[in-house]
């Protein structure tokens, strides 16, 4: 009995200490984002993503960790592993390559894709994934070019490293074949010396929507200028850089939708319960200044259709 009395204060002290000490801060929820280093408008897209999460009530106890690897499979795979290692509870991947790389790592984390071209035909289309992608009708690009000048041959700039642009150039091959236009695919890679010798054969240039292509935009446009070729792209807002026509899906809208999906996952919904979205509402911009500089006049009735005109 004496022994018991002697040891009684110990559990009492432990209990008091447990009650008195502040409870440890709950672990933060980490959202891991893989956004290739060459993603166009990366900062703006991220800002919208974070703001939307906040607006959706995902504010406190949440951290968005963004990695910007080079868009090749090794770098993208490494990024996925890093995010898993720091305890990310949700992965958000920008573009088809980043999505495939994350899937290849076979993590059990929920994954949401964003900025994927035509996700219904992406390599992962049959998997139980969700996310927000976009689709721009590439037939419209040819249609607009044909209204500027006769088009017999057109070059298409793409990057074989990026699945999104490969699928776009495949689609263009099909469209131009049907319309009896010769297509010259020009494959560019990030550090290569650009070989534009083929480009001088085209009546116009189509710039596919990929991050590496976007990185080399100034050189592509300089070459188009040299050959007096109108250019058209599905890259957003590239007109400031001097592209003649842009028909694009708003990347901020994609990011906003992606964040809303992420908020739902964090709130407990299963990925398979969230319907994937493909944004098809596109914006049309004409750059009259760029057109004039290569001696092309954009017809008045076309200009009237544009959402924005750069003079």
């Amino acid at each position, binding site marked *: 009995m004496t022994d018991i009395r002697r040891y009684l204060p110990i559990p009492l002290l432990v209990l008091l200490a447990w009650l008195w000490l502040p409870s440890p801060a709950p672990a933060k929820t980490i959202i891991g984002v893989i956004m290739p280093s060459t993603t166009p408008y990366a900062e703006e897209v991220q800002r919208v993503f974070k703001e939307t999460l906040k607006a959706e009530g995902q504010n406190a106890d949440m951290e968005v960790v963004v990695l910007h690897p080079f868009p090749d499979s090794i770098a993208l795979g490494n990024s996925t592993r890093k995010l898993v290692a720091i305890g990310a509870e949700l992965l958000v991947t920008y573009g088809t390559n980043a999505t495939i790389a994350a899937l290849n790592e076979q993590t059990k984390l929920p994954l949401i894709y964003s900025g994927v071209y035509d996700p219904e035909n992406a390599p992962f289309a049959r998997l139980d994934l969700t996310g927000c992608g976009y*689709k*721009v*009708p590439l*037939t*419209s690009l040819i*249609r607009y070019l044909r209204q500027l000048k006769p088009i017999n041959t057109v070059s298409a700039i793409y990057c074989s490293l990026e699945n999104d642009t490969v699928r776009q150039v495949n689609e263009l091959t099909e*469209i131009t074949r*049907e*319309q009896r236009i010769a297509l010259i695919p020009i494959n560019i890679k990030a550090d290569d010396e650009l070989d534009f010798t083929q480009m001088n054969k085209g009546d116009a240039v189509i710039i596919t929507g990929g991050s590496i292509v976007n990185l080399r935009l100034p050189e592509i446009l300089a070459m188009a200028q040299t050959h007096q070729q109108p250019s058209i792209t599905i890259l957003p807002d590239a007109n400031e850089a001097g592209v003649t026509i842009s*028909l694009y*899906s708003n990347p901020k809208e994609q990011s906003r939708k992606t964040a809303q999906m992420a908020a739902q996952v964090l709130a407990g919904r299963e990925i398979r319960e969230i319907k994937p979205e493909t944004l*098809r*509402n*596109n*914006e*049309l911009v004409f750059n009259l200044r760029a057109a004039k500089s290569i001696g092309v006049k954009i*017809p*008045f*009735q076309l200009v*009237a*259709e544009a*959402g924005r005109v750069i003079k």
Partner: protein
Amino acid sequence: MTIWPPLLHPNLTGRHILAAGLILFLLLLTSRSEALVKPREILLGIEPEHNIFTQMENYRKLAGYLTGKTGIPVRPTVMSRYGEVLQRFKELHLDGALLSSYTATMALDALGMTPVARPVNLAGEAASYGLIFTRKDSGIRQLRDMRGKSFAFVDPATAEGYLFPLLYLRQNGIRNPLAYIGRNFFTGSHDSAISAVLDGRADLGAAKEAVYARQLAKDPALAKELVILARSGPLPPATLFLSNSLAPELRLGLTTALLEMAANPEGREVLRNIGALHFTRADKKDYDQVRKMAAEAGVNRDQGPAQ
């Protein structure tokens, strides 16, 4: 009586001057009435149905034909947008206009113009139809898919490009069509509404079937991209209206020239360019259904769509 200035002949009297003034007045009056009967030219307004350059080219040929038949230059002028007819009639003193059905009701009610002739299309119909269409890959197949989707209308003053889609939604139980669909905008012409849908700048669009068919004939690949969701009933096609202030013989001359066009090779060639077999007489009663359609669609011509 002193005559001023003194340089005039001294024998001139006030009576002489009065007589001269009277002669001058009569001469002026004659030339004025001559001007009413025979204007220097007949100015016809054209609504911007599709590519205005092609449209002007086609109507120039029609105008040239009418010039030859009436002996007075007939000049087409494109009105910058639908519904501008009232303003243009007042400002430019238009003698007539080729008006689509809804604008025509305005011309009838506010300007007292008269419909004289309307074209019979290659299918043998003096009618126009409206279409609602979308991209095949849009996933929109029925009414309930239209909720929240963006819509490209042509102009608030078009039956095919505005009244019809609103009426379609109302007839299918949507009390407030503009609130049911998502963002909407006016493209200004029928072919622009088609382009907007093709590009994905709008999920849905409405336009004249004739313009849709013309686009398809020009680029058959479009058939793979677009799908028609709804078609309107027959509406009056673009019809020639003439101002009631135009001299009766000129009105008769223009009407006869149009109605008899198919009887000669030159006329048939012009008709071919505008996609018509011949012209037929038009009647004010044709427009009663358009007024009814506007009322059912909840559109007040002066105040816009009812919300």
